[in-house]
């Protein structure tokens, strides 16, 4: 009981510090990008159906209601960039970049970037290109150079979390999660970029890669 109270007070004060508004996993977590095409919701990295490949998923523009999904689109001035560190220093050794143009998603890389950090340019020549799948259509999938597969378009948001109850706990108006919980992301969509890459293209001599996704806007 005492522990619970201490914890609740701790949580409550933490809630005040963060202004009581919290989002997850990265859905609208930043004032600067909320409700913009640059807003990242999630990244996934997992072994593909073909175990020789690795899959990279970047989801953007979260909490799309079904009725709003058809109108959502990728921004032609925003690069979605997977950064891949293959030697453990948290500096990108390779990038995979996607940018939309004329209803298509064009892919660059995996390729060593000409500079690292917050500023990027499109690197090299396109390695794959796919028609962006419209809402309600079956997925358009393209295979590019080296066997890279790409999809771009609306999908169900794969993230699940009782965010509303978490917010109550943080705000001090609840002390625990509910059983069962309620998925705050059910019934919502995201705009996804899914890329499947042969592991042989990743130079992962240590047996692992460290990955993060960035949205970068034309300057």
């Amino acid at each position, binding site marked *: 009981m005492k522990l*619970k109270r201490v914890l609740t007070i701790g949580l409550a004060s933490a809630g005040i510090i963060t202004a009581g508004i919290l989002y997850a996993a990265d859905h609208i977590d930043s004032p*600067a990008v909320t409700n913009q095409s640059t807003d990242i919701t999630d990244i996934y990295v997992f072994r593909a159906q073909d175990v020789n490949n690795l899959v990279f998923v970047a989801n953007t523009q979260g909490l799309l209601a079904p009725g709003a999904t058809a109108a959502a689109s990728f921004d032609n001035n925003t690069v979605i960039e997977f950064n891949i560190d293959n030697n453990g220093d948290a500096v990108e050794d390779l990038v995979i970049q996607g940018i939309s143009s004329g209803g298509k998603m064009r892919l660059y890389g995996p390729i060593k970037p000409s500079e690292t950090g917050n500023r990027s340019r499109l690197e090299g020549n396109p390695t794959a290109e796919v028609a962006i799948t419209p809402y309600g259509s079956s997925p358009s999938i393209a295979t590019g150079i080296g066997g890279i597969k790409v999809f771009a378009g609306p999908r169900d948001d794969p993230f699940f979390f009782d965010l509303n109850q978490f917010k109550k706990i943080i705000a001090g108006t609840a002390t625990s*999660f509910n059983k069962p919980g309620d998925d705050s992301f059910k019934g919502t969509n995201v705009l996804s970029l899914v890329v499947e890459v042969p592991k042989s293209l990743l130079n992962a001599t240590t047996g692992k890669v460290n990955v993060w996704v960035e949205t970068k806007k034309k300057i």
Partner: protein
Amino acid sequence: MKKNILSIVTLLAVSVVLFSACDKDDGKPVVYYQTQDQMARPAINTVFVDAAEKDVFNTTTPSAQGAAFATKFRNKLLALNPGYTTNLLGLDATAFTNVLATDVLTGSTTGVTSFYDGTNVLTGRALADDVIDVELILIFGGPMATMNPGLTSDNVGTNDKAFLTSFPYLATPH
């Protein structure tokens, strides 16, 4: 003469700038793109970064995040769970937040990819992984994952739609 040299130097400088700003092949100016948002492990910014710094965290390159945010993450962890000692990974507050502050998502290229499946720890993030429960357990569950039982699971264990076994893996939109 002096003026001429100056002009030549200026001319050279200008041409260097011009050339360096041009693509070698087509002569068009290079277009640059600047970071707006960034993400790796789920919910890290949400849970550990103060409201005023969320944009800063999202635009700090991962190799610089540890130095800038590790201490702040530690303070936040101890505010969230004042009784924190160690967690299921055996990490004390400093060690745990040092790992978290450099926000990269590790993916194995040789084995199973999972955020945590009882055997594999942080070897990737699969679509079905209950990443929130893993993070709640690591934050609130103590060394044996038995502390604060009301806070170590949100009791939402699966997505609302089944995932596909083949590319593009994510479910069709609602």
